[in-house]
């Protein structure tokens, strides 16, 4: 019956998990894409001067007279960037030939290379040999050990000699730039993730707020703090709230009907039983003894089942509360008449608007029995006090005291025992205290006995209530 929580994730968890599932990959891809674009444009800017250098070299190269040995070449002018002149400046150009062993032998080179050569990967040579590709962007290690980005073009000179022309530059700075950008992008995305997650969490909470409110309201109804699931709900929840109200009403109806049936049956039997008992009492014979015995058994059964039916229905009705004033004052008025010979002086003090969170019938039974009991034993004064308990939210005490003989402390336990009667002299149905205690316990309260300020017995009952 009970709904289990925990086996499946909560709505909040589900919604947030769903959001994370699409958001994190999306943001990661965004960060990667941004970095890639930045890298492309950085390299494009980086490659421009190298491109120019190669173009310059191609424009400036001369093969000279045919008489000269093949492979001889001159440059009419060199690329002008002064960094090509400074040794190991990190910016180089070179015109060279590949040897059969894959090494590149410089024919002409910038002064910055200081006579060193650059080691290129074999793939470049293979591609050039097979004439599959004539332009390359590749990496190499510079003369100073620095990583270089190399632009390389394979050129056939007018004298049919094949050379490669390359320009290279230290790649560390743009790499640093790109790395910095990537970190920035990732950092930014993480921040966005955090912000979006917080926003989603807030939005989910906000979106689900009516559900939380509804849940709270239902709990309030069950505890009798309110009578109905009221308030305004979104169109998705309004039908649910209506259904709940219908269910609450239905529950009240069912309990009430069941109780009415039992009660009608029991009360319907009481008159015939009274007749049988009276008749048997009046005509003493063998038959009347049997009738009397059986009728008494039936009476006990009726009382027992009536009590059971009342007890079974107790606490079943949700969302009812009863005004203390409207219950206790009529009871006092009635008891004053029942015990008019005693001229009972009732001292009632009940906070204005105090409500018992339970059924009127139960409160009447409870307060009625306590007050009746006090009236039975009192000389003339009965006090009925009610007040909310400080610090114990939702409970109040009902204290009924009298100025009668009271009970000794060692009699308290006996007084609360079912069926016990401490004094047979005062007519009535015994103490009624066990019934009151059962009732209080059914409402999660309790009952304590003590000595009243008036001198007699004091009964303190703790009950759920609200002001």
């Amino acid at each position, binding site marked *: 019956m009970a709904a289990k929580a925990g086996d499946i994730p909560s709505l909040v968890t589900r919604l947030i998990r769903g959001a994370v599932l699409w958001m994190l990959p999306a943001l990661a891809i965004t960060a990667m894409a941004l970095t890639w674009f930045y890298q492309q444009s950085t390299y494009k800017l980086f490659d421009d001067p190298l491109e120019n250098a190669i173009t310059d070299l191609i424009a400036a190269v001369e093969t000279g007279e045919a008489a000269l040995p093949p492979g001889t070449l001159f440059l009419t002018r060199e690329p002008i960037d002064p960094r090509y002149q400074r040794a190991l400046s990190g910016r180089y150009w070179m015109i060279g030939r590949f040897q059969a062993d894959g090494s590149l032998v410089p024919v002409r080179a910038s002064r910055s290379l200081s006579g060193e050569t650059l080691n290129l990967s074999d793939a470049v040579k293979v591609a050039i040999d097979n004439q599959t590709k004539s332009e390359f962007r590749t990496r190499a290690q510079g003369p100073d050990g620095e990583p270089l980005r190399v632009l390389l073009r394979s050129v056939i000179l007018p004298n049919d000699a094949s050379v490669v022309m390359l320009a290279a530059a230290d790649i560390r700075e743009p790499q640093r730039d790109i790395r910095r950008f990537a970190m920035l992008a990732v950092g930014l995305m993480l921040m966005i993730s955090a912000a979006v997650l917080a926003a989603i969490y807030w939005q989910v909470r906000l979106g689900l707020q009516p559900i939380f409110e509804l849940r709270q309201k239902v709990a309030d109804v069950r505890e009798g703090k309110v009578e109905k699931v009221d308030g305004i709900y979104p169109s998705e929840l309004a039908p649910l709230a209506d259904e709940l109200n219908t269910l609450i009403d239905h529950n009240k109806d069912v309990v009430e009907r069941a109780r009415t049936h039992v009660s009608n049956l029991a*009360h*319907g039997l*009481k*008159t*015939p*039983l*009274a*007749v049988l*008992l*009276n*008749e048997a*009492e*009046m005509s003493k014979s063998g038959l009347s003894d049997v009738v009397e015995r059986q*009728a008494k058994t039936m*009476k006990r059964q009726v009382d027992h089942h009536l009590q059971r039916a009342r007890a079974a229905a107790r606490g079943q009705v949700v969302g009812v509360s009863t005004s203390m004033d409207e219950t206790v004052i*009529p*009871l006092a*008025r*009635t008891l004053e*008449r*029942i015990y*008019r*010979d005693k001229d009972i002086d009732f001292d009632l003090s009940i906070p204005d608007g105090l409500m018992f969170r339970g059924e*009127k*019938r139960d409160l*009447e*039974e409870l307060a*009625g029995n306590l007050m009746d009991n006090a009236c039975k034993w009192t000389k003339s004064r009965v006090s009925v006090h009610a007040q909310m308990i400080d610090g114990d939210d939702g409970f109040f005490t009902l204290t009924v005291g009298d100025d009668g003989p009271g009970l000794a402390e060692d009699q308290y336990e006996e007084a609360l025992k079912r069926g016990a009667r401490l004094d047979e002299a005062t*007519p009535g149905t015994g103490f009624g205290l066990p019934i009151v205690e059962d009732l209080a316990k059914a409402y999660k309260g309790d009952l304590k006995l003590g000595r009243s300020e008036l001198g007699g017995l004091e009964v303190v009952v703790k009950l759920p209530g609200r002001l």
Partner: protein
Amino acid sequence: MRILVVEDDPDLSRQLSEALKDTGYAVDVADNGEDGHFMGDTEPYDAVILDLGLPVIDGISVLQKWRADGKTFPVLILTARDQWSEKVSGFDAGADDYLTKPFHHEELLARLRALMRRAAGHTTDSIEIGGLMVDNRAARCFVDGMPIKLTSHEFRLLSYMATHKGRVISRTELVEHIYDQDFDRDSNTIEVFVGRLRRKIGTDRIETVRGLGYRLIDPDNAAAKK
């Protein structure tokens, strides 16, 4: 003392009326709210036993109507309903006592006596007037400690006069309070009963006030006054 029983269960009604008659009361019976209300409205009863679940008009409404019409006779509610809310509404409607079924005859009779006693302003069941003791509880009477045998009509007459001792009671009032509805009311019979009663308890205990009625008196006091 004349009592009205409004109860729809014929057996219970019969038992009640028998028990009450045995105790020395004049008893009228109604088996529905309408008749009950009419009888209470037109006849001067000394007490009423009223069931709540009645046909035609329910008991609470009957009681409310009586009280609205200024009827002050004591009313004892006899019902199967034992909830406090029902007791409250019964007393609020003007009931003087409330007894739940099933019940003991003794308890019902004791409560009825208490109601009538209270209505007449007495504190005990037995009333004493100068050596004459009327015990309403046991329906017996003593003169100077000696028990006197009375018929039920004689006792009713004496009991009514004792309850209203010191007051002059008209013949009509006596007729209304000691006979039930079905009795043939020939006012002569009152004089017959008074005569018999005087022979049994002493002539000077019942004073005839010419043109007004009878009065139960303490003969010694009356003698002293003269």
